[in-house]
């Protein structure tokens, strides 16, 4: 070994230990895994666990599940911030997360920085355990998906990002050159939002997969939230469309619009009004409380939340927006 990052090594397991966990805990039983969000989060999101979410930025993020985690006041979550935007921002703002691994966090892309999670980190309420790049994080998930201890990569090298990661640099015995080894990342639980799945969890995603193909295999427990549940027959008709096979899945939760205010490709676009409201309110701790009281603690479930954010009219607008039938309006465009 030539060099070693000083970041905290999290969510890593010796591959043999992980194999044994899989052997003892994951079964190929074709059983109905439907449950409600409350139950799924209660059962699989434990205080202190390492959690990662599907999607990217504000795209295909399982927001209904994120709200439910906050509603259940989970504590000390360690969040895999693999381009974690709205999800990680809310979890840090709400006090659910106490640690984060960062590839990209604290920002909302074009919309600007995240006041709440920045505050949480700057005040020391949330600790950054390590730094990564998007590709490095994603290759950590691939290493786990492949049951490996690490993946060799040609990024991070030479930077402080490497120094703050838990990677190692070694000499490649083939080329004689330095190469970076990123450790596998096996999240305790992952939550993904998909376009459709059957009651067993066989899932299809339309459009880009981002890192979900890898994440679904890397995670030990997997909750799938879905826009709709379809017949098993429909999945088996086109098996080459399956992105997640049932035996990886522990819970199936049907949540139409389950990514709101994020964007579900082909179905609905970003709700900029709502994201804007959050970005405005989250400038202060009081604003965060106000937001959570209204949209999370104050509603009994996701349907009530959807009504509160604008109901059918808003959802129809977001659908039209996705289909390019209306023009985008966004608070951040006004500036």
């Amino acid at each position, binding site marked *: 070994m030539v060099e070693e990052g000083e970041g905290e090594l999290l969510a890593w397991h010796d591959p043999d230990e992980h194999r044994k966990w899989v052997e003892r805990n994951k079964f190929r039983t074709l059983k109905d895994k439907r449950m409600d969000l409350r139950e799924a989060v209660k059962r699989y999101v434990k205080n202190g666990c390492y959690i990662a979410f599907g999607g990217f930025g504000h*795209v295909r993020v399982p927001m209904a599940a994120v709200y439910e985690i906050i509603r259940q006041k989970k504590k000390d979550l360690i969040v895999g911030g693999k381009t974690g935007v709205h999800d990680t921002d809310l979890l840090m703002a709400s006090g659910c997360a106490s640690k984060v691994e960062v590839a990209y*966090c*604290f920002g909302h892309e074009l919309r600007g920085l995240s006041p709440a999670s920045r505050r949480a980190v700057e005040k020391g309420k949330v600790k950054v355990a390590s730094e990564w790049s*998007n590709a490095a994080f994603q290759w950590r998930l691939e290493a786990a998906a492949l049951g490996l201890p690490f993946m060799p990569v*040609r990024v991070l090298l030479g930077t*402080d990002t490497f120094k703050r990661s838990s990677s190692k640099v070694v000499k490649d015995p083939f080329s004689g050159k330095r190469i*970076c080894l990123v450790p596998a990342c096996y999240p305790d639980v992952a939550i993904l939002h998909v376009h459709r799945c059957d009651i067993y969890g066989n899932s299809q995603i339309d459009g880009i997969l981002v890192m979900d193909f890898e994440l679904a295999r890397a995670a030990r427990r997997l909750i799938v939230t879905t826009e709709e549940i379809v017949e098993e027959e429909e999945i088996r008709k086109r098996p080459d469309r399956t992105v997640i096979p049932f035996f990886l899945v522990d819970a199936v939760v049907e949540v139409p619009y389950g990514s709101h205010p994020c964007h579900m490709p082909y179905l609905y676009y*970003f709700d900029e009004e709502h994201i804007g409201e959050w970005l405005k309110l989250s400038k202060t701790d009081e604003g965060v409380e106000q937001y959570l009281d209204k949209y999370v603690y104050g509603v009994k479930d996701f349907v009530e939340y959807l009504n509160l954010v604008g109901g059918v009219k808003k959802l129809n607008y977001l659908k039209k927006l996705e289909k390019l039938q209306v*023009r*985008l309006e966004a608070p951040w465009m006004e500036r």
Partner: protein
Amino acid sequence: MERDKGGFSTIELMACAASKMLKDNRSVLVGTGLPIIAASLAQKTHAPHLLIIFEAGGVGPQLPTLPISVGDSRTFYKAVMATSMNYVMSFLQAGYADYGFLGAAQIDMYGNINTTVIGDIDKPKVRLPGSGGANDAGSLAWKTIIIMRQDKKRFVKKVDFITTPGYLTGPGEREKAGLPEDTGPYRVITQLGVMGFDEETKRMKLLSLHPGVTVKEVVENTSFELIIPEKIPQTPSPTEKELKVLREEIDPAGIVLKRK
């Protein structure tokens, strides 16, 4: 940035300058904002075969409108391929990405970039988003183009944190670190001018001044010693055609071009 006397804004000038750097028949990894605008402009002018790639998986889209996020469905609208980050990053690693665009909070004379933190990483004054795909593009793309604001707090002697590698501490250092050979920062585009890197020393070098900007202004907004050649051309002004394409086809709503 307001429209100046020349009939174009600085941001339009920057978009056109960035666009001209992109050769035809090559590929560019873009983010949202100015990079996607510059790449679109190149496609619609001198580089019809420029391939646009997004890190989240969109490859070669026919953009119907400006995407807001790099994972947005617009990034794979009528695309050649809608795939994964693994696939796209593998392309970068295997040498298929010619250009990568980066933003930066701080940059030093070797093009090392900070987007992680202002102040101490353990006691951050301002916590920034971190690398995202920046370290990846900066490590793996053949040429990285940086677009940022130029002032003394951003063009610094030493960045608070090297998020993304420039030429590190000088010539040969990238290769010594194990990074792919012959890669690195290519251009830095700011509101004042365009900078490149000296071939021998790998230090930042002024290449052109935007209309109306003086060398003095550039120097005053840079905390490190910039290489200033004797003759410094002016950054070409946008043509009528470029402005028309920018304003009417690429960003008619002014999502990026009219932002401050």
